[in-house]
C-alpha cells in the first residue's frame, strides 16, 4: 500500500516542474510553503503540544533577517538562510526558556506567544533598525545568485526542499528518543517529569527547532515578494494559517500538515476563482473549515487512520 502512496506523492511534488502555467506553479508553491510552515508549527505544537498562537514571530524574524542583511550590510541573500536558522532558533529558545521556566503551558503558553508576536510587531513598527512602519524594500535584482527567481519553478524547488527538511525533522521526531520525550510531556507533563524528562529543556529545544525552521519560510517570503513590514511579518493571520494547516490535516502526524495545506489551498483557490461576490469566498472558506473541524477532530488524516482500523 505504501508504494502507490509514494508514487502519488512524488508525482504531486515533482509535477509542478513540468508545468508551464506560472499560476499553477504559483499555486503549488504557495501550497508547499503553507505545508512547510504548518509542518514547522507541527514540530512544536503537534508533537510537543506547545500550542502556539504566535508562530509568526519566527516567520517575521526570518523575513527581517533576510531584509536587514541585504539592505543594511549588503550581504548576499543566500547567507540569510543560515542566519535566519540561527536567529529563529535563538528567538524560540529565548521565548521557550522564559515561558517554560515560568511553568506556562496550554492556553497560557498560547497567549504568551500571541503577546510576543504583538511585542515583535510593535518593536519592528517603532525601531529605526527595522525602518519602523515604513517596512523594508529589498532591491529588485533577479538572478539565482541573488536568491530572486523569475521562474516560479525555482522558488517552488526551494520551498519543496524546505518542506522535505521539515518533514524529515517530523519523521525523525516520530522515531527518535527526543520525539518520545516530547510526546510524553504532551500527553502528561507530570508523568513525563516523574519519568525523568527535563520539561524546560525538552520544550525549549522543540520550540527552538521549530522557530529556526519557520524562519526559513520568512526568508523565502522576503526573497519572493521583496517587501517586509510589521503587519506582513508579525500579523496574527499567518500564525492562524500555520495552526489551521496542521490542525486540519492532523496535528502530531508526519503527513497531516501536507494534507491540510493541500485541502485548505484548494478550498481557498476554488472559492476565490468561482465566486465573485466580495466577502463570500472567505465566508465559504470559514464554513468549510468549521465543517472539517466539527466532523474530523483528528484532522483529515483521521479518515485514513479510521479506514486502516
Amino acid at each position, binding site marked *: 500500500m505504501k508504494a502507490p502512496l509514494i508514487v502519488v506523492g512524488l508525482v504531486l511534488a515533482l509535477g509542478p516542474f513540468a508545468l508551464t502555467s506560472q499560476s499553477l506553479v504559483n499555486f503549488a508553491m504557495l501550497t508547499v510553503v503553507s505545508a512547510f510552515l504548518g509542518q514547522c508549527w507541527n514540530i512544536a505544537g503537534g508533537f510537543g503540544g506547545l500550542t502556539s498562537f504566535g508562530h509568526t514571530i519566527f516567520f517575521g524574524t526570518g523575513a527581517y533577517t533576510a531584509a536587514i542583511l541585504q539592505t543594511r550590510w549588503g550581504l548576499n541573500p543566500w547567507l540569510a538562510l543560515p542566519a535566519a536558522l540561527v536567529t529563529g532558533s535563538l528567538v524560540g529558545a529565548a521565548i521557550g526558556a522564559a515561558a517554560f521556566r515560568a511553568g506556562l503551558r496550554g492556553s497560557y503558553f498560547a497567549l504568551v506567544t500571541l503577546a510576543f508576536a504583538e511585542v515583535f510587531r510593535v518593536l519592528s513598527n517603532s525601531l529605526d533598525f527595522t525602518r519602523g512602519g515604513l517596512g523594508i524594500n529589498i532591491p529588485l535584482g533577479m538572478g539565482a545568485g541573488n536568491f530572486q527567481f523569475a521562474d516560479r519553478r525555482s522558488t517552488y524547488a526551494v520551498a519543496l526542499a524546505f518542506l522535505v527538511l521539515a518533514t524529515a525533522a517530523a519523521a525523525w521526531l516520530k522515531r527518535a528518543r527526543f520525539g518520545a520525550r516530547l510526546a510524553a510531556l504532551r500527553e502528561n507533563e507530570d508523568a513525563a517529569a516523574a519519568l525523568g524528562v527535563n520539561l524546560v529543556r525538552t520544550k525549549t529545544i522543540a520550540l527552538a527547532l521549530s522557530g529556526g525552521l519557520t524562519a526559513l519560510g520568512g526568508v523565502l517570503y522576503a526573497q519572493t515578494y521583496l517587501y517586509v513590514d510589521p503587519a506582513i511579518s508579525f500579523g496574527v493571520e499567518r500564525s492562524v494559517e500555520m495552526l489551521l494547516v496542521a490542525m486540519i490535516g492532523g496535528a502530531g502526524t508526519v503527513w497531516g500538515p501536507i494534507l491540510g495545506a493541500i485541502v485548505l489551498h484548494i478550498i481557498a483557490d476554488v472559492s476565490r476563482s468561482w465566486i465573485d461576490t*466580495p466577502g463570500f469566498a472567505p465566508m465559504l472558506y470559514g464554513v468549510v473549515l468549521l465543517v472539517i473541524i466539527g466532523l474530523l477532530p483528528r484532522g483529515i488524516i483521521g479518515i485514513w487512520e479510521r479506514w486502516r482500523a
Partner: protein
Amino acid sequence: MRHTRLTRRSTLAAAATLAMPSIARAQAAPIKLGLIHPVTGALAGAGGRCRLGGQLAIADINAAGGIKSMGGAKIEALLGDAQGRPEIATQLVDQMAEAGAAGFTGCFASNLGLAATQAAAKYGIPFAIDSGIADAITTRGLKNTFRFFPNNTTATTDAMAALDAINKKAGSPAKTAVIVHEDSEFGTNSVKLQAAKLPLIGIEVKALLPHATPTRDFTNIVLRIKAEKPDIVLISNYENEYVLLARTLVQQRVELMSTYSISGGGFNLKFAKEAPQVAENMIDFNHWHNPKDPRATAFRKRVEDSGQFYSWELPFGYFAVKLLADAWERAGSADKEKAIAALNASTFSDHFMPYGPTKFTDGQNSGAHPVALQIQQGDMHVIWPDSFADVAAVFPRPKA
C-alpha cells in the same frame, strides 16, 4: 406566373445577410484588463471604490465604441480580490496573465502594488497604478509600471509648500504646531518630513504625539495638545482615528487656527456630511479632481446619483484604466511592448485631475500633484494651488 418582388426591405435584408460574416469578422477581439484590488478585509472600502472607478471607465470606453484604432475592440474586465495580501495579488497576476490580460490596474495599497507590478513585469504586461503612494513602486526600474498619480515624495513636499502659502497669505499667524501621527508606515513616513520642514517655513514644532492604530480614546492626546497651546495641529492617521481625534478636539474646546492633515484618512465627504460642525474648516492635503472642470462635477454627480460615496479613489481607478486605453488607442494594438512604448510617450490630457498632460519619467507622471482641500459648508473645496482653487481658504478659522 408568380414574380418575386424585390422590395427595399428584402434588398436590405439580403445585403445584411451577405454582409454579416464580414461584420462578424470585423468585430475585434476584446482586450482583457486585470483589475486587482482588496475588496474584502480592512482595505475593502477604498479598494472597492478604486475597482468601481475602473469599471466605470471600462463602461464609458466600451459605450463610446471601444478602442477605435483596433476596430472598436471592447475592454473586458478581469476582476481580482487581493484581500490585502501581496501573495494573493501575485497569484492573481499569474492567473490573469494566463487568461490573456493585456494590462493591469490596481492595487490601492503600496505593498500590494509592489508585489503585483513585479509579478506583471515577468510577463512584460503594462501596469497602471491607481493608488499606492510608495516611491519604490516606480523607482525599482520596472519597465512595465506607470503611475499617473503623485508619489509620496511629491505629496509630502508639496504639503509643506501649501501650508506655507496658506499661512503667508493670511499674514503668517501660525507660529507653532503639534503633530499627531499614527505609528506605522504612513504616519511615521509623513511625520519625519513634516518635523524637518516645518521650522523652515517658520513654524516651531512643540510636540510629536504618536498613537497606535487602533486608538479608541484621544482624551489624553488632546489634553497634551491643549497644554502645548499650538496654533495648528498636524494630523497623519487613518479614518477612524482621524474622526475620533477631530471630535475630541471639538469636545475639549481646543482653540486652534486650524487642523492640517496630509492624506487625512477620515477627511472625506462622509465625514463632512455626518459631522458637519466638527469637519467645518478642517484642511487636508490630498488627492482630488480639478473642481473647475465640469467633467469632474458631472463624474461626481454620476457616482453620487448611483448611491455611491464619492472619494478620490474613484477618479484614480477611472483614470488608471483611461490611461491604458489611451495607450492602446495610440499604439493601435494591445501588444505589450507597443503599449509600454505608447505609455512612455504618453501626453494623456483627456482627464479632469489637476495635473495637465502626462509626462512619464521612469514610470512616474512628473506633473501629478495633490491639492490642499478644506471642508466649507459641508462640502469639499480646493483652496491651493490658486490655479485650481474654487474657494478662498478660511484660515485662521473663526473662533467658536
